[in-house]
């Protein structure tokens, strides 16, 4: 919190952000946390749906429901917001004006939208020859699915993730979040930063696109490779592992409390038996070898469960870690904010939002020693930076700005459709 952006590594980079929902916003938020000036260009009528999602209270009786959605707050910190109707000629001109003084344009519309707006790469290079453009449609810009619509909640099904998640005797299960979204966001930032290196060396910009589906398959490679190499379709493993045993989530004292334990090798197994005070397990010849433990993990799990059920999850974690065994509590949302490790490392970042007040959000995925980065302001109110961007950056006068509002080219609150 209260990070000074002036020393951050991306301080000289301006990003025009046409993204919505979660994948693209995650990417631009990470860039903003690293010091980039991110200008979110928001629609005047059909605004980003996440602006309304999961407010701290009901949305019916509030004046600015579009500013209250926590889904928007968690993914748009440190950005600027302007409202601009790109379907108008004036709106398009103003966007090109911004592009002409920007380094990066990023969008995650479905594949055909930018073409419809006449804002393809060919249009952008006319005003900024070395622009870096990143598009992130769900299925890429070519191939039979290129125009298909999808959200992260469903897309993971087409990456192999859902198929690999769940119990061996049960159906596939969706993950708890739309993992492909931040996954795609990270791929996007990686490619953009690489393209900045290219520009720095050659003066050339880049037009890039990411298939969110493919990017995520690329990070689940071991099961895909098992098929391409050996023709094997892997079974779901629950919380177990292909080659480690015992490994599982075990029940602890309390309401739906769990601890994860993973004995990767003989040393872990011996330490685990000792920590549980179960010399009999240690002496059992059937468990001596990893293959035996693997085959008999059901009965071993019963023994471990019998021990953990009487103990608190944190206690088990502390005890087993003291013996060098991979172990951790299965954190619930409330546990995360109480966790001593997250606390001491100041992981969570609190922002003070004008409409809803102070709330903590997830922090940086890494800590840089000299330029730590992080949130330097709350997620923007809708159109909060209209004046700053239109008047100070693009040089419009007060009257011109007012004409944008009158002509519905811009807005200070979402407009009702015609």
């Amino acid at each position: 919190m209260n990070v000074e952006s002036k020393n951050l590594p991306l301080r000289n980079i301006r990003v025009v952000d046409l993204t919505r929902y979660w994948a693209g916003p995650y990417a631009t938020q990470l860039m903003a946390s690293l010091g980039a000036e991110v200008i979110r260009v928001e629609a005047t009528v059909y605004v980003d749906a996440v602006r309304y999602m999961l407010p701290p209270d009901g949305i019916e009786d509030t004046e600015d429901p579009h500013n209250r959605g926590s889904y928007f707050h968690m993914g748009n910190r440190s950005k600027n917001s302007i409202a601009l109707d790109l379907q108008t000629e004036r709106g398009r001109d103003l966007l090109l004006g911004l592009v002409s003084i920007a380094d990066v344009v990023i969008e995650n519309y479905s594949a055909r939208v930018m073409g419809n707006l006449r804002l393809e790469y060919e249009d952008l290079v006319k005003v900024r020859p070395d622009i870096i453009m990143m598009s992130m449609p769900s299925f890429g810009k070519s191939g039979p699915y290129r125009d298909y619509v999808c959200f992260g909640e469903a897309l993971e099904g087409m990456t192999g993730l859902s198929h690999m998640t769940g119990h061996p005797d049960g159906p596939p299960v969706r993950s708890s979040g739309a993992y492909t979204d931040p996954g795609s966001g990270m791929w996007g930032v990686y490619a953009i930063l690489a393209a900045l290196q290219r520009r720095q060396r050659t003066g050339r910009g880049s037009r890039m696109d990411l298939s969110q589906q493919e990017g995520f398959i690329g990070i689940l490679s071991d099961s895909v490779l098992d098929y391409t190499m050996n023709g094997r379709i892997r079974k779901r493993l629950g919380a177990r592992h292909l080659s480690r045993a015992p490994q599982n989530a075990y029940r602890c004292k309390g309401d739906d409390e769990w601890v994860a334990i993973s004995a990767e090798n003989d040393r872990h197994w011996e330490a685990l038996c000792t920590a549980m005070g179960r010399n009999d397990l240690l002496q059992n010849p059937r468990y001596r070898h990893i293959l035996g433990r693997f085959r008999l993990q059901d009965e071993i799990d019963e023994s471990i469960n019998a021990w953990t059920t009487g103990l608190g999850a944190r206690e088990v974690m502390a005890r087993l870690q003291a013996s060098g065994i991979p172990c951790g509590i299965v954190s619930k949302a409330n546990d995360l904010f109480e966790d001593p490790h997250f606390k001491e490392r100041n992981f969570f970042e609190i922002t003070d939002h004008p409409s809803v007040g102070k709330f903590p959000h997830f922090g940086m995925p890494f800590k840089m020693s000299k330029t730590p980065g992080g949130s330097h302001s709350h997620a923007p109110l809708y159109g909060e930076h209209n004046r700053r961007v239109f008047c100070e950056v693009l040089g419009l006068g007060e009257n011109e700005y007012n004409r944008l509002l009158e002509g519905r080219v811009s807005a200070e609150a979402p407009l009702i459709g015609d």
Partner: protein
Amino acid sequence: MDSWLKDLKVLDASNGIAGSFCARLLGRCGAEVLKVEPPASGDPTRTLAPFFNDLPHNEGSGLFLYLNGGKRSLTLDPTNAAGRRIFQQLVADADVLVESFPPGHLDSLGLSYDALSATNPGFVQISVSDFGQWGPYSAYQANDLIENAVSGLMYPTGFPDRQPVPSGGYLPQFISGMAGAIAALAALHGREESGVGQQVDVAMLEVAANYLETTLVLYTYQGIVRGRTGSTLSPPTPLCDMYRTRDGYMIVTSLTQQQRQSLFEMIGHPELVDTFESALSRAIPEEAKQTLWDSIGAWLGEQDTEEAFELSQLLRIPCAKVDSAENLFNDKHLNERGFFQKLDHPDFGEISLPGTGLTVEGEPAPPPAPAPTLGEANREIYQHRLGISDREMAMLGSGRVI
């Protein structure tokens, strides 16, 4: 893309997936990557499945190949004095070091960031670990399961009447590799102006916690501790679940009124629109929810996945298939895009590798490259670059320094 970082030198002294993937991503952009592995055994990732022909072999891990394609391999043990000197020489010539030693280990060898950067001020060090370089858990043991658990990703995954499960694969490791590559590129960008590099602490726990999506805000804004609901999404999307089809599973979502209308028409229950829309701003009654679920389930249960997917997309409903690795490998879309790249491995024959999904206009995708055999670059790098003699090499080898 494979020429963008051509002048960049990366020393990959990491063991495991995250660090290897981080260095691989820099290598994909053209950086020279020297992988420094423990003598004799090499990076433990060499022991991870899958293997060619299912035969465990130090050079035959497909995962190792995927993570280390195009790198060069050196063997080196930096824990003794001779190894330490060589390590310092290698670092002096590098732009980026990627390492995953236990936190504090390099410091204890006299190889702290400050020491390593003393003669190389622009030097960037990516330190990847389970819990970070400091903090109460920094010395704790972990792996993908533990990171899934402690980060909060695991608790809401699975069914309410069974234990929580992690997502499949090595997600925390891979995304930490990406985070490390991003951090390296950001640090390199920053040093263009500042002239100085820095050390980056990549904690897999914290990277994983970046993937919590609404699990955090549901709790902080609304006081709801997200629990396990199978594949049914509790807020925010009003309609999202997985259904069985005749030959598999599908995930059905809808976000807009138009999408819901199309969905209800597709399944032959247009009347559901009224029930749903009138209740939308409030909680939908359990009974109505059940009717909805049953109606979608009944229809999909009679459909083939492929056909239902195509029909739903024709109607612009955001649905998806639940694909196995086999489905993906045979998928017409992925194949038309050339997603799987074939590599002719000198020892094991042909293998298909997944790509990254990134396309750069005017540049073909970087071709896949085999991973280095253990220590294949020792002679070239140690003798030709560092000027170590034959005799010294033999001594280092017999002393297990290299």
